[in-house]
């Protein structure tokens, strides 16, 4: 038994933390890409903004796409509710609200993250500092994750944390795929060309999957990358992995509370679409459509969980 509000606070704390790490990876991938390929810089930053789901918001405040402005917008702009600083602050506010449900280690890790990033992001981050700041965000996120996994009891509290994490991760990874889906389509790709190699690398890097993809020793190609990021159950950022874990954690809640809620069926539906299929089928049905429908189903699942477990009412 726990308060509905607490369940919601844990869920959002973890969503926001996941988003901060995802944003940092998007900036890193974009930054790397534009260092190697100056020509397409604007288009790359536009797709980074698109992947972070803030392109419109950015356009409302800036007339043109400019590397420094985009990075600042994604890292520290308080008017951007998804900037790293905004989400870290939101994560900490949620952590404060659910302080009673967290171990001292987890709370201190979240609080420490907020304090360090508030310092690091107090002023605009220069080109020179950027790698250090991104590294800091990555380290802090590892610190929170470590505290969470190392000290929390495996009960409903933990389950709501995990559900938030995987729901957010699904959204982040699916958006990256969606923005870049055209470079993953067999029809338009020029296999082996340098252009697409950069694009592919950026996609993998955005999902923190470039090393593990290399370990697979597969030939780099759009099909293999799409398969890896969507279907590979060993990759902690693949959509299939996320849904296996969503279903598992919702299952623990169901067993714990002894009651099946509607969100479970919704979760299993999407899980089926990610586990009982192959990449050929997905590509034939249209990669873009597939990803879009996953994003929508994922949003709907989030709303249903919120209702089923009485986060707000």
């Amino acid at each position: 038994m726990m308060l509905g509000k607490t369940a919601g606070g844990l869920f959002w704390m973890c969503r926001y933390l996941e988003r901060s790490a995802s944003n940092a990876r998007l900036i890193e991938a974009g930054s790397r890409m534009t260092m190697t390929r100056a020509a397409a810089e604007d288009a790359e930053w536009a797709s980074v903004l698109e992947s972070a789901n803030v392109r419109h918001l950015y356009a409302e405040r800036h007339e043109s796409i400019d590397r420094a402005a985009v990075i600042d917008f994604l890292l520290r702009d308080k008017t951007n509710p998804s900037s790293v600083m905004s989400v870290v602050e939101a994560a900490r506010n949620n952590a404060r609200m659910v302080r009673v449900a967290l171990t001292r280690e987890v709370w201190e890790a979240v609080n420490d993250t907020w304090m360090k990033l508030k310092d690091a992001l107090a002023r605009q981050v220069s080109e020179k500092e950027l790698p250090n700041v991104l590294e800091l965000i990555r380290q802090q996120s590892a610190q929170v994750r470590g505290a969470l996994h190392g000290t929390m009891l495996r009960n409903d509290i933990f389950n709501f944390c995990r559900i938030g994490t995987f729901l957010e991760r699904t959204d982040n990874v699916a958006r990256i795929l969606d923005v870049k889906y055209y470079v993953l389509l067999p029809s338009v790709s020029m296999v082996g060309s340098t252009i697409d190699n950069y694009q592919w690398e950026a996609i993998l890097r955005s999902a923190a999957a470039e090393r593990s993809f290399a370990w697979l020793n597969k030939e780099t190609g759009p099909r293999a990358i799409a398969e890896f990021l969507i279907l590979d159950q060993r990759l902690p950022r693949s959509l299939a992995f996320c849904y296996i874990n969503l279903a598992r954690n919702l299952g623990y809640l169901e067993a714990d509370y002894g009651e099946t809620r509607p969100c479970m069926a919704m979760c299993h539906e999407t899980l089926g679409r990610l586990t009982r299929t192959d990449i050929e089928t997905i590509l034939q049905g249209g990669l873009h459509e597939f990803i879009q429908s996953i994003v929508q189903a994922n949003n709907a699942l989030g709303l249903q969980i919120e209702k089923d477990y009485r986060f707000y009412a």
Partner: protein
Amino acid sequence: MSEQDPPYNEMFGRGEVPRDPYQEYCKWFEAEENRRLKKKAKEAEQAFRRTGITFNVYGREEANERLIPFDIVPHILSNREWQSLSEGIEQRVRALNAFLHDIYHRQEIVRAGRIPEHMISENDAYLSKMIGVEPPGSIYTHIVGTDIVRTGENEFFVLEDNARTPSGVSYMLENRETMFEMFPELFIRNKVRPVSTYPKRLRRSLEACAPNACSGRPVIAVLTPGIHNSAYFEHAFLADEMGAELVEGHDLRVVDGRVAMRTTQGYMPVDVLYRRVDDDFLDPLNFNPDSMLGVPGIFDIYRSGGITLANAPGTGIADDKAIYSYMPDIVEFYTGEKAKLPNVPTWRCSEPDSLAYVLEHLEELVVKEVHGSGGYGMLVGPAASKKEIAAFRKKLQSKPDGYIAQPTLALSTVPIFTAKGLAPRHVDLRPFVLVSPKGVDITPGGLTRVALKKGSLVVNSSQGGGTKDTWVLES
């Protein structure tokens, strides 16, 4: 208490040799290097920030999370000193509880002519809706903070009773933890009575006050106004340490004659609510209709015995400084004994003779609002400018019954650690008292507040005061 004497120094008394309780500490301190201590003091601050023990200061947008400065030199009491203090506090708290029951029932104390009727009925803090209500276990003041000041070897006074919502207990606990971490060796040399049992004692005490409607182990929750409240850290801390739920008003509603909290599995009744929300905001149906912090209808459930509210609504009248001035009578009336702990002499400005005296001696007196707290809205005569005194004189003349006055006490000092070594600063002490039908339980020590500015008598954290660990020695 003559004004010419320098203030009493609790470490050295009136002499130059450390007093008994401080001897071991001073030996240790002498042998320490200043550099190491400076480093430790800095570490302590970092530890507090990491833990998030901050408090919000109202009306200061920018630095809205501040640390209360912590001083590394403890405030030490011998067991004998503590014994006599705690006997006095227990007597006083029992009397307060009896007084509250009386003024909401037969008002014997008014009938006996010990307190004028209007002091009760016309008091803003008197909650007429509590008349005739019987709180579970007849307890009104479940948690009390009694502010104690000292002026000499054996001269202790009660400065204030905090029976509404005393705060600061989390600092008492965290200060000790910090001392343990920084100077473990000190606790081998000195046998200090533990404070860490407070949350368990609080839980036990609250459980003992469960309402009749409760079946099984009482469900306890802490009601907070939310994360923006200045004491939110403490609310979360106490809930956490007690193993209670931390709820806000919108987590609760009335369901089937009980107050219930919304959980992931539906609504579940709460038996005891340790509320850190003021009376006025507790129930928009019964009190302030604009309150967003409370629970509609909770007071009706309370009246019918469906929930325990700690502290009971209407206890705030005991914090009133005009009522304070009657405490010696109150103690005598309900316990049949003389008060063991004296009050600070107090002039009620509502009485013409007193008012005349106060107006004539403003430069020497401390004048306080009867409903004020937190060190706001008071005049410290000796520290005030002519202009401030003139302005206060006007306020006082236009609404005399809103004020009381007290002599400026030469509050005792305990040294703090500064860049130049030890420096005496004024302190007060707030012990925390738990009351249940099973008895009165006082955790040894309490929260020592210290004025960090030289010569300042204001120790409130909202006014730049700091805190110290408080030790009660085993012997």
